[in-house]
């Protein structure tokens, strides 16, 4: 079986700190090109399928590798992941929206807004905030698993883990590029992250304590992220929607790899099984909290609640209520937990024949808000780590800019 391990890339010429230059043409034009990251030349290496080395991906025939394991694969199986293509082929629309009436018409027709189109300032700001938060989550999300690269228990796992963390970096860059189409540059967004003015997903404020956490993150966190992101493939803003299609495909690999880590542990020694169960216990509730508090009711509050939600729905940025996505995730994940042999830490979890869904308990929203506001096990550590890397690298980026400027001057002088 050929198994691809995420995206393999190598950096060619780096573009340092030039605002706007990093925007990838695929994001701007919507052309279906080979996915790339700004400044990065994609490279597929023959025989880079590092998983296939040891044979079957799941190590057991009980799990059907063709069975959809996450929302991205489900959508692909149902043929609904091509939403963007059916939404707005480039030719269908004669001209760009030149005024807000045209914007409204495009939204009403469920067509895509492109960077050249006029758009309400609030729409632009909402998207910047959401895309930036998403990009920051990819970048901060490298840390919990990056923490295990040097300790992965086998060379195969080490390779998969490096490729995964690398993928997340690519997602971050791709999303920063999407945000740049809205007129803000990566440098500024990073500053907002470092200054705590913009958030990242609160899930990454939890620590990775054992090897099994890498499995639980892939299975649950990437799984929940995909559930959130598949609808975004039909987001009204073209560059974001296109970024999401590509990102979802890779997240889908991550989710399978996480599942496979746990699968292997659950068929291993007693202490490996205990490790897997402990990780599932710790990550289950934070994963459910990833969908955010209910959009209405007592727990609802914060930036995505109430009128914000309504507005985002009307603008085609948000397509499902938080509770709806959470339910879908639970319904998809519980049978997988059963296959794994893991117990999910919720005494209220039971199949509801009438509803045709799994009933489940209440997320601890007090904990959610506490962690979101900064009082989680790793909030301070994540930002400090990110700032340290950024600050330590300042002289390198300055040098690259200085060299580029010198080279330009030299070229101009020799041309004159």
């Amino acid at each position, binding site marked *: 079986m050929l198994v691809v391990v995420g995206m393999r890339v190598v*950096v060619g010429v780096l573009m340092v700190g030039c605002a706007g230059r990093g925007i990838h043409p695929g994001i701007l034009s919507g052309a279906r090109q080979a996915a790339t990251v700004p400044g990065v030349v994609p490279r597929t290496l023959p025989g880079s399928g590092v998983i296939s080395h040891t044979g079957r991906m799941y190590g057991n025939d009980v799990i059907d590798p063709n069975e959809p394991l996450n929302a991205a694969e489900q959508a692909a199986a149902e043929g609904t992941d091509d939403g963007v293509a059916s939404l707005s082929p480039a030719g269908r629309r004669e001209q760009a929206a030149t005024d807000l009436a045209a914007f409204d018409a495009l939204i009403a027709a469920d067509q895509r807004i492109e960077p050249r189109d006029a758009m309400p300032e609030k729409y632009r700001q909402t998207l910047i905030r959401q895309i930036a938060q998403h990009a920051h989550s990819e970048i901060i999300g490298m840390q919990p698993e990056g923490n295990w690269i040097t300790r992965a228990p086998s060379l195969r796992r080490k390779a998969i883990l490096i490729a995964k*963390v690398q993928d997340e970096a690519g997602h971050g860059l791709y999303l920063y590029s999407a945000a740049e189409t809205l007129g803000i540059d990566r440098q500024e967004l990073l500053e907002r992250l470092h200054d705590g003015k913009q958030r990242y997903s609160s899930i990454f404020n939890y620590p990775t304590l054992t090897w099994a956490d890498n499995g639980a993150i892939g299975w649950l966190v990437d799984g929940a992220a995909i559930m959130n992101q598949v609808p975004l493939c039909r987001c009204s803003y073209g560059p974001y929607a296109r970024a999401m299609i590509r990102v979802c495909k890779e997240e889908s690999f991550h989710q399978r790899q996480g599942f496979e*880590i746990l699968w292997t542990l659950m068929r291993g020694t007693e202490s490996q099984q205990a490790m897997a169960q402990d990780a599932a216990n710790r990550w289950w509730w934070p994963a459910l909290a990833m969908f955010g508090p209910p959009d209405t009711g007592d727990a609802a509050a914060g930036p995505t609640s109430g009128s914000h939600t309504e507005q985002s729905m009307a603008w085609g940025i948000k397509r499902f209520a938080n509770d709806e996505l959470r339910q879908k995730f639970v319904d998809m994940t519980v049978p997988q937990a059963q296959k794994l042999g893991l117990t999910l830490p919720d005494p209220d979890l039971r199949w509801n024949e009438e509803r045709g869904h799994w009933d489940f308990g209440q997320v601890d929203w007090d904990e959610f808000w506490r962690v979101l506001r900064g009082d989680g096990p790793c909030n301070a550590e994540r930002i400090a780590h990110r700032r340290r890397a950024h600050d330590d690298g300042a002289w390198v980026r300055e*040098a690259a800019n200085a060299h580029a400027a010198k080279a330009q001057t030299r070229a101009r002088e020799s041309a004159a």
Partner: protein
Amino acid sequence: MASATYLLGLADDALIYAQRLGEWMTNAPQIEEDMALGNIALDLLGQARALYPHVGELDGTGRGEDDFAMLRYEREFRNVHLVEQERGDFAQEMARLLWFSAYQVELHRSLSGATDEVVRGVGQKAVKEVRYHLDHAQQWVVRLGDGTDESHRRMQAALDWVAPYVDELFDDDPVSVAAVREGSVGVHSPASLRPAVQHVVELTVSQATLTMPDPPAWRSRGGRDGIHSRPMGYLLAELQHIARSHPGATW
């Protein structure tokens, strides 16, 4: 058998450097560089994983990649000291990568001519990869050398730092010489690789407006005999501790 021992050293170089490069992920000066160094680490890991099982075949022990990586002791590792040194600043990494990748370009060219089919395959695949690594290192050495006063100073200091670890890459130890004489694992002994490597490095250094360091007062020795420097034990502790904590487990 000299060939197996020789190849084990090459595999260990690749693994241990991959381990060090992996430490850069989330710590690099910019996100593109997290990806690039991760990519180089993956390529090196791929070299090691291709070579280890073959060593296990050649030496008749049937050991697999994780037996070699996770279950050997420090004295059994045959990598050079260059790759085991602790992660320094970004200039130090680029100085190390410049020498190592320039060396690996020549090495894998040599392996590409091996009569041993596996070794030839590794060489032919890797030679394409390590050209990217070299290109990456060269670009950064030039940027840093030609960049700001600070980057110039750091890059020059990095070249000085790496200098004592360079000779070891090109030592014609008895095992390498015997292995090359056997002919199945390549056509060039380590010492014969040096002129081409030296040329590439000197060219890059002068392009970067830097100077080649004076011959260092001391040089590293012993890696190929399993005599390592202080950081090696800590590196192995981190690399091996999960695997060793669960004897017999699969992952």
